[in-house]
C-alpha cells in the first residue's frame, strides 16, 4: 500500500510529439489518497501529462519524454519498468465509456483472469467487490451475464471503473470521465470518486471547472504545455495567484 505522502513526483518533465513540445518542463507532486485535478484549455497538454503517468503515450508514434516521473520513488521511464505491471497499478478511465463487448461479469473479471486467476469462487468475489466499490453492484447483480454494452452511459462508465478496480490499482487516472454523461450520472461518478479517494489516489483531467472545484483537493492549471499554477483547490478557485489562472477560471481567457 501507499506509504509515501506523494505517490508521484514529476520532475522537470517534458513530452514531445515529433518536434512539438506538448508538455514543457513540468514539476508536480501528486499526493496519495487525494484527488488532483488538471485543468486548462484544449491543447494545453493536460491529457498528455495524465497519460504520461502510466505511459499510455508510448503508444503514440514519435513521442518521447525528458525528465522524470517517479512512481513510489521509481522512475517509470527507467529501463526496468514493466509497463503492463505499471498500467495495472496505475489504471485509467477514459472520456467515452468503453466496456468490452462481453458480459458485465467478464468485463470485470477480464483483468484478474489474464493475470492467471482461475478459481471461480475467488473471481466471483473480486467481481462483486469491484462492482460494489464502483457503486454498480445493486444495479447489475441480476444481470451479470448481460452485455456490458447494454447498460446506460453512466453505468457503463462505472463498469469501466469497476474493471480498473478489479486490478487493485494504487492510482486511477480519469480523462474527462463524465463529459459524455448526463448530470445525474455525473453526480454519481463524482460521489464515487470522492469515495474511492479513501483507497486510491485519483488524478482527473476535466474541462468542467465546477467539477474540479467540487471534487478535487488540488488543482493544477496548465497552459501551452506549462504548469502555470498548482495549489489547494480552494485557493485556485477563490484566490488564484497567477493572472492567467484567474483569467481562465473566470472565463475571460484570450
Amino acid at each position: 500500500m501507499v506509504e509515501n505522502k506523494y505517490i508521484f513526483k514529476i520532475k522537470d518533465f517534458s513530452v514531445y510529439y515529433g518536434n512539438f513540445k506538448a508538455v514543457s518542463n513540468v514539476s508536480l507532486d501528486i499526493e496519495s489518497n487525494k484527488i488532483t485535478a488538471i485543468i486548462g484549455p484544449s491543447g494545453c497538454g493536460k491529457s498528455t501529462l495524465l497519460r504520461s503517468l502510466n505511459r499510455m503515450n508510448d503508444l503514440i508514434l514519435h513521442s518521447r519524454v525528458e525528465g522524470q516521473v517517479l512512481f513510489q520513488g521509481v522512475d517509470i521511464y527507467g529501463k526496468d519498468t514493466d509497463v503492463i505491471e505499471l498500467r495495472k497499478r496505475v489504471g485509467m478511465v477514459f472520456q467515452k465509456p468503453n466496456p468490452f463487448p462481453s458480459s458485465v461479469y467478464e468485463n470485470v473479471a477480464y483483468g484478474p483472469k489474464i493475470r492467471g486467476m482461475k478459481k471461480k469462487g475467488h473471481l466471483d468475489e473480486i467481481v462483486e467487490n469491484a462492482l460494489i466499490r464502483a457503486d454498480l453492484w445493486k444495479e447489475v447483480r441480476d444481470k451479470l451475464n448481460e452485455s456490458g454494452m447494454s447498460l446506460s452511459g453512466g453505468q457503463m462508465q462505472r463498469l469501466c471503473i469497476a474493471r480498473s478496480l478489479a486490478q487493485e490499482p494504487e492510482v486511477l487516472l480519469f480523462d474527462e470521465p463524465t463529459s459524455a454523461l448526463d448530470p445525474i450520472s455525473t453526480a454519481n461518478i463524482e460521489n464515487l470518486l470522492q469515495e474511492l479517494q479513501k483507497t486510491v489516489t485519483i488524478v482527473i483531467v476535466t474541462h468542467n471547472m465546477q467539477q474540479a472545484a467540487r471534487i478535487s483537493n488540488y488543482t493544477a492549471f496548465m497552459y501551452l504545455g506549462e504548469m502555470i499554477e498548482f495549489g489547494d483547490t480552494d485557493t485556485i478557485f477563490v484566490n488564484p495567484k497567477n493572472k492567467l489562472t484567474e483569467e481562465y477560471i473566470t472565463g475571460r481567457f484570450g
Partner: protein
Amino acid sequence: MTIFDEELNALREKILKLGSMVETSILNAVKSLVERNSDLAKEVIKKDHIINALDVEIDEECVRLIALRQPMARDLRQITTAMKITTDLERMADLAVNIAERALELNEEPLLKPFVNIPRMAEIVQGMVRDALDSFVAGCTRLPYEVIKKDDEVDDLTVKNFEELLEFMLKDPKIIPIAVKRTYVAKYLERIADHTTNIAEMIIYMCKGKMIRHTTISGE
C-alpha cells in the same frame, strides 16, 4: 466586454447608488438634529424603505449571479463582498433613522449646548463612507486602509462627547434625559463608523483574497 461583465458593472452601480442614498440619510439625519429641522428628520425616516428595498434587490441579484454564473476567483470575491457590504449599508441607514428619531425628540427640548462633537464625527464618518465606496469601485488602493484608521478618531470623539455630557449631567440631573439622547446619537455615529470599517475590510478581502477582519492589525 462579456454579458457577465456588464452584470457585474450593474451590480457595482447598484451598490454605489445604495451607498450614496445611505450617505445622504446620515448627512440629513445629523443636519436635522444640528439645525433642529424636524421636517428633514421625518424625511429621513420616511425614505428608509427605499434603502431597504434596494438592499433586498442587491441581495437577490447576488444570489442570482452565483446561481447562474457560478463565479470564480475575483468575480466570486466581488459578489460575496457586495452581499456583505449591502447588509452593512442597510444597517447604517437604520442607524441614520435612529439619529433622526432622536432629533425629533431633541428638537422639542431646549438646546443643552451647541453641537460640536457630533458634527465633527458626522464629517469624519461621511468621508469614511465615501472613501469606502470609492475603493469598492477603484479596487485595490490604499484607501480602505485609511478608512480603517479613521475609525479610531470617531471612537475618541464618542468618548469625548460622553465625558462632556457627563459633566453636564453631574451638575444638573434634570437635563439627563436630553444628555443621554445626545450620547445615543454619538453612539449611533460610532456604530456607523464600525459598519464602514467592515466595508473597508471586505474591500481589502475583495482585492487581496485575504480576510483581515478580527485581526489585531487591520492594516497591511
